[in-house]
């Protein structure tokens, strides 16, 4: 009986371990000036000024193309009151990015949202900062976007 329970425990641990090995995780190259910090499973990075970046994975459910999700996101954000200031594609990786402006405590903040569809998953990248600070890190953020992926 004791052996049986030990065997069950080993099997459960092994299954959990294998499951964790195959659980998709977000990944991105660390942009210049940022450092990773511990988060709840997502990739989280922060600059010395406190500007943060988050990369996470969502299910591509219902399974749709990048164009579909980009249109859905753009419509949702616009309806929610954000103003689109710039957008483009991440050519090497087949993704899209949007930069929105919204007020935070009377200041204009830029909110970066980027998407990439990878099979059954969608990689979502977010970052935001007050406009002047965002402009400082913008080149580094955009340089990192093509490396956002499911691992």
């Amino acid at each position, binding site marked *: 009986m004791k052996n049986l329970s030990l065997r069950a425990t080993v099997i459960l641990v092994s299954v959990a371990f294998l499951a964790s090995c195959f659980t998709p995780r977000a990944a991105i190259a660390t942009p210049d000036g940022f450092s990773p910090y511990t988060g*709840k499973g997502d990739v989280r990075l922060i600059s010395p000024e406190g500007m943060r970046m988050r990369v996470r994975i969502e299910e591509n459910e219902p399974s749709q193309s990048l164009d579909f999700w980009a249109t*859905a996101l753009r419509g949702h954000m616009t309806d929610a*009151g954000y103003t689109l200031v710039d957008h483009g594609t991440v050519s090497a990786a087949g993704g899209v990015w949007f930069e929105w402006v919204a*007020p*935070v405590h*009377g200041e204009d*903040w830029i*909110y970066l949202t980027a998407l990439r569809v990878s099979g059954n998953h969608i990689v979502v990248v977010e970052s*935001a900062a007050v406009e002047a600070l965002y402009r400082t890190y913008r080149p580094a953020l955009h340089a990192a976007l093509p490396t956002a992926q499911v691992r």
Partner: protein
Amino acid sequence: MKRSLLRIAAVCFVLASVAPPSVNAQTQPPGQEFLSYRLFVYVLAPDREALSAGLANWADGNDGYFVERSGDQVVLRTPRSNVPALRAYIESRDGVVLRFEPATADLRQELLNTRAAVSSRQESLDRILELIGSADIGATLAFEQELRSLNQEIEYYRGIERLILNDSRYAHVRIALTSEQSSIPDYLPSAFSWINAIDLYQFLKDRS
């Protein structure tokens, strides 16, 4: 001879440098010549940069001037009578005036104090000019020093007087420009739950 030259130089110096202020409060509407008018305007603008540039040009073209200009705000001075036209101009450029907050301050006491300071120094200066004619060389030199000192003080207070009169003549207008409303409108959920999670304010709150 030397003493006479000194006297002449001192008197000429004083007469040349004590000039009346150039700005005249009489240009203001009766009863308002001692009021300083300040205005804060908060504007929702589809194109902040264009409106910012337009406001600076508007100020220059309407007897005023701009003090500061950026994409976020414009600070300008304009005759008070132009304030209604300023609002009309903002609205003609598709700006939505979210806040329009005028305020006034009475400058009378400050102006009277300044004028009294000028007047008392002017009296001292006149008295010295009367005495300088009968003074010896030593006293003349001392008077000259005193004249210079009084003259500097009179110029200082006349400068303040000009600033006060300028404040009463020109409204001080600060226009803050925003490209978005002060808060995001009511929450509009997407049919896709993960898209609902994409939100700047949620992102900023998520510090875990």
